């Protein structure tokens, strides 16, 4: 199969498939514009280089790989980047096969400019930072694979300074080999002219642990969908999601966690803060497959509405195919800022506006504290606090790591 045949087949899939993969949530699905032509909005390489330098300087992170709408490069042998048109036949066929029932995945298959392979060696310990910086449309597929008994931490940072409307579409496939521990962090701080489509499929081997932390701060519209399967016996998946919306930002976050084997555990913890006219559709689905004795499935969704016009739909869902010695629970709450907490804080001399910010930053901190990397944690918290203070997002001035008082991170 050639690249052009691959693209043609992917486009046919995309056009023939129904709009959404999961009919149950059709009513709660964010329609997002998927442009046919992704070539617009390109910037000169020099401008993108400057943007990358600025982000590196402000975050104080030396990125192992940089992906832009014009070029992509890696300085780490664990991160291999291939232009889609240079991909070999096996790679192309593999992608179509895996995404055959998924319209959005088919779209990214047909549009991806880069295939990024992240591999960590058996028993090795790796920390990788990858920057996605764009001034226009950007589409990529990322394949993350940990070696057996490896410990890997991959942090992805997404920034966009698009002058015109742009879409970032990224598909992840994650394989966590047996006995390995992998943490994947994704920070989204795109500007208001950018939309995001983020898909992730992942699975764990026996006794493997996969931690997935997603922070959605930027973009006018975010559509994120993840399907994570604890395939290996006694494996563990922990997904933490945090979205903070202001203005008219919209989020559609749909995460499925599946227990396919005995004694495996899957946890989904989602937190959402919405101000102004922002909206979020938060869908968490846990499946307890047949013959999964001793498995644990938990979904906790929490939302805080800072304004009367903000809106959240929280839809936790469980499907239990096996009821012999399994634990499964789900919960959801959406509330305004706790008035008792505000009284408590203001009774200590703190002004109400500051008390509100303190309360929200505490809520945000709870989720961000799950991230292992101190620098990534500081950047994420800093971006969120600046958004809370200044009510803006997606600008480079907001990434200033600083000493932030945070609660101690739970030990794993």
């Amino acid at each position: 199969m050639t690249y052009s045949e691959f693209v043609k087949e992917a486009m046919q899939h995309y056009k023939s498939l129904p709009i959404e993969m999961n009919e149950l949530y059709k009513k709660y699905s964010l329609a997002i514009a998927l442009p046919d032509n992704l070539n617009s909005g390109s910037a000169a390489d020099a401008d993108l280089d400057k943007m990358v330098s600025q982000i590196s300087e402000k975050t104080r992170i030396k990125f192992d790989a940089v992906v832009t709408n014009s070029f992509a490069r890696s300085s780490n042998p664990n991160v291999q980047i291939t232009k889609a048109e240079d991909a070999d036949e096996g790679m192309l066929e593999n992608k179509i096969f895996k995404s055959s029932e998924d319209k959005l995945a088919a779209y990214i298959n047909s549009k991806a400019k880069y295939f990024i392979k992240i591999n960590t060696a058996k028993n090795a310990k790796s920390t990788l930072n990858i920057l996605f910086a764009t001034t226009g449309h950007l589409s990529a597929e990322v394949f993350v694979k940990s070696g057996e008994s490896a410990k890997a931490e991959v942090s992805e940072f997404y920034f966009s300074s698009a002058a015109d409307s742009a879409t970032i579409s990224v598909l992840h496939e994650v394989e966590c080999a047996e006995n390995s521990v992998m943490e994947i962090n994704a920070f989204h701080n795109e500007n208001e002219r950018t939309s995001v489509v983020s898909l992730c499929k992942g699975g764990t081997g026996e006794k493997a642990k996969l931690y997935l932390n997603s922070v959605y701060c930027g973009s006018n519209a975010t559509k994120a969908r993840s399907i994570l399967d604890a395939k290996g016996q006694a494996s563990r998946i922990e997904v933490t999601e945090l979205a903070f919306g202001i203005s008219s930002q919209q989020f559609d976050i749909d995460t499925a966690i599946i227990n396919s084997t005995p004694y495996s555990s899957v946890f989904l913890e989602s937190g959402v803060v919405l101000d102004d006219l922002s909206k979020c559709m938060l869908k968490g689905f846990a499946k307890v497959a047949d013959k999964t004795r001793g498995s644990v499935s938990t979904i906790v969704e929490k939302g805080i509405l800072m304004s009367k016009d903000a809106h959240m739909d929280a839809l936790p869902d469980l499907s239990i195919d096996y009821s012999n010695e399994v634990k499964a629970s789900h919960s959801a709450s959406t509330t305004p800022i706790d008035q008792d907490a505000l009284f408590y804080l203001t009774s200590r001399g703190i002004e109400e506006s500051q008390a509100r910010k303190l309360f929200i930053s505490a809520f945000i901190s709870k989720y961000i504290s799950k991230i292992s990397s101190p620098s990534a944690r500081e950047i994420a918290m800093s971006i969120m606090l600046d958004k809370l203070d200044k009510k803006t997002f997606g600008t480079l001035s907001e990434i200033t790591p600083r000493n932030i008082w945070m609660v101690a991170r739970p030990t794993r």
Partner: protein
Amino acid sequence: MLLEIKDLHVEAEGKEIVKGVTLTIRENEQHVLMGPNGSGKTTLAKAIMGHPQLKITSGDILLDGESIKDLKPNERSKKGIFLQFQNPTEIEGLGLMNFLNTARGAAGTSQSFKDFMTEIKDTSTKLKIKEDLIGRSLNYGFSGGEKKKTEILQMSVLKPRLAILDEPDSGLDVDAVRLVAQSIIEQQEKTKNGLLVITHYSRILNYMSPQFIHVMHEGKIIREGGKELIEKIEKEGYEAK
């Protein structure tokens, strides 16, 4: 004169809870407010602090002769009023140190950061507050006793002129009651603050020297006296003549 409560009437959700309380607390005095559950003690304490969901329907609260009943809780705090909560709110994600430092900043204290840290360490040691508690979220997952001790730690940071302590002894073991009482007295000796202690039990009062005992029942103060009243209440109950 520090605090004067004049014929105060307070409503919560349309129901009158405090029905005409009059009370005066001067600096360096120790007052105790006792009474059965539901008599309005906590509502009175919260009303003094300015709880936004409580409505003062008549009467007044004066601090140094000026009405504070229209002030916000943070403004009352800045004037030197402190309320130790009976059930302190848990805020997950807000580090205790972050909170203490923010409160210290809000109070506009001239204390240096170094002195602030020394004070935290000293008071924590005296109260036997576990070190790991300082790095944890505010009151989150704390035991009842840990919460009460943390409230007293906050009081030492804010150095109020008037401290209202709502059941500082509940949930504490015998040794912890003594430590908390000693810390309260030590702080009063330093700051000469006025104290209003709300309690059901006499055991914390064994370590204190309250001059004024007030008994509240059905929203009103029905009896007042000196420390001898405590013994009488212990024997005969709140409504004894």
